């Protein structure tokens, strides 16, 4: 068992399941899917300029590309293309361009399609943060800690605004909340999360960590605060279980956690269905 990998996974899971609640509520799940895929071209383009995969500027540059993607999808939606179709048009294009650039220019570099898709949790701890030759632990741990703090602070500051635009966007517009500003701040934040998590856990696990715990907790409660707490808790448990399974059977961590996220949701659905059925029978 490697404690450092587990810590990185748990902190990533914390950030993802926290913003995941708002993404699920705002019907942005597939948009999130698009953002996490375009993180690839963001990272590739930023890497071509900066040439250091761990630079904070790379994360910021790549996030900017993701925000631009969302803007592109919204431009297409304005041209009377259904949102789902617009999403499905833009992100495979950008993802393909990312793959082609790697094929052509970045073979044998620090970026590989493999780690983009599957993550590299197993190897991430070899990159250490050292100050004056003192080993302070894996660099990824610190990056994800910073992101987690940024997300938590953002959500605490903008909690009211986020709540209003999640549940009643028309009311939000009439009551003077700057919907567009909060919307784009939120998009920037999820782009930042997607890009930083993308480098570590890979495209697929990012989506899974964001959607899985939050929809599972939405099955149990309608109260927003409770949903957030449940979501973080479920994300924690899923990561622990997923990592445990991956470690025991020597399989890939990101795939194991993503599978656990789906299975736990389905079990919860079955459980809730069973309870409802029981109550119905008792009444009749």
């Amino acid at each position, binding site marked *: 068992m490697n404690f450092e990998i587990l810590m990185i996974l748990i902190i990533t899971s914390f950030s993802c399941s926290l913003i995941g609640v708002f993404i699920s509520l705002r019907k942005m799940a597939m948009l999130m899917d698009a953002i996490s895929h375009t993180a690839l071209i963001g990272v590739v383009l930023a890497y071509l300029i900066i040439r250091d995969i761990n630079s904070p500027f790379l994360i910021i540059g790549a996030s900017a590309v993701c925000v631009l993607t969302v803007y592109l999808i919204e431009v297409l939606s304005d041209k009377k293309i259904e949102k789902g*179709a617009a999403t499905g048009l833009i992100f495979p294009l950008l993802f393909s361009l990312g793959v082609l650039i790697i094929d052509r220019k970045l073979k044998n570099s620090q970026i590989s399609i493999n780690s983009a898709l599957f993550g590299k949790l197993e190897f991430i701890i070899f990159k250490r943060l050292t100050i004056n030759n003192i080993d302070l632990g894996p660099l990824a741990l610190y990056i994800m800690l910073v992101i987690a703090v940024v997300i938590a602070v953002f959500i605490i500051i903008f909690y009211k605004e986020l709540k209003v635009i999640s549940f009643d966007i028309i009311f939000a517009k009439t009551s003077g909340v700057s919907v567009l500003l909060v919307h784009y701040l939120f998009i920037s934040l999820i782009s930042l999360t997607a890009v930083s998590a993308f480098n570590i856990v890979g495209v697929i696990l990012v989506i899974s960590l964001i959607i899985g715990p939050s929809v599972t907790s939405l099955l149990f409660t309608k109260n927003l605060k409770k949903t957030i707490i449940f979501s973080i808790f479920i994300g924690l448990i899923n990561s622990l279980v997923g990592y445990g399974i991956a470690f025991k059977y020597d399989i890939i961590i990101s795939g194991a956690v993503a599978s656990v996220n789906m299975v736990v949701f389905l079990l919860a659905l079955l459980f809730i269905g069973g309870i409802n059925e029981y109550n119905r029978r008792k009444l009749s």
Partner: protein
Amino acid sequence: MGKLILNNYILIVIMVGTTLIGIVSGILGSIITLRKEALIGNALAHASFPGVMLSFMIIKTKNIELLLIGAGCFSIISLVIIKIIKKYSKIKYDSALALVLSGFFGLGQVLLSIIQNTGNSNQAGLKKFIFGEVATILSSDIQIISIISITIILIVVLFRKEIKLFIFDKEFYKSLGFSCEFLDNLIILLTVIVIMMGIRFVGVILMTSILIAPGIAARQWSNSFYKNLVLSGLFGGLAGFVGTFISFKNSDLSIGPIIVVVVSLIAIISVFLKKVK
């Protein structure tokens, strides 16, 4: 270009394959895009990945037909799960799609890593299902693809009126006594078959693009349903043809992403040249 194509048997074989797949995925994609279910193809294609891995684990050789049947089965399982989630919970539809596609793809990763641990030497090339590869395509494969593609086109032609009514005026369609469930299942089944054929060429991740993009492009040029289907098929076929040619000229570039770039550019150009209101 003409000379290069004529002198190259392999290129012709592959081009016929990609063009046909472009055509049928364009036609089917146009239907699902008009039904506003564009992203279902994304979930179904991702979900086919563990199917390929599981059938490889069972049969232990790379018998392509059996691998693809496994892929199709998993697409259908994922569809059933999406429908169950839709029916029994208030979870938003796109959350259900995202959950299922990431969960199934994760499962595929797990199975792949188990296969890699066993060290079976046949496993090399299984990863090619992620972005597609055409080096292993044989002319016998193309015969099968041709037969299936023509069958799919014939089925769509046969049911064109029903599909049109089903998409645009469901109530009227029901009142005529037709079954919605039948057409719904037929369209999904055909989509799954197209995905099964397509993932070898463009891969599970990018399959969604060649389903959606031709439909979007066609929609910009015509309001007529039948013209949409024809145009969408043409755009898809064109993208398959051109994409294959470009990838053949630049052997360092994977074929799947190239076809996707071509088809997306056709769609984006169409959006900006938009003819219909």
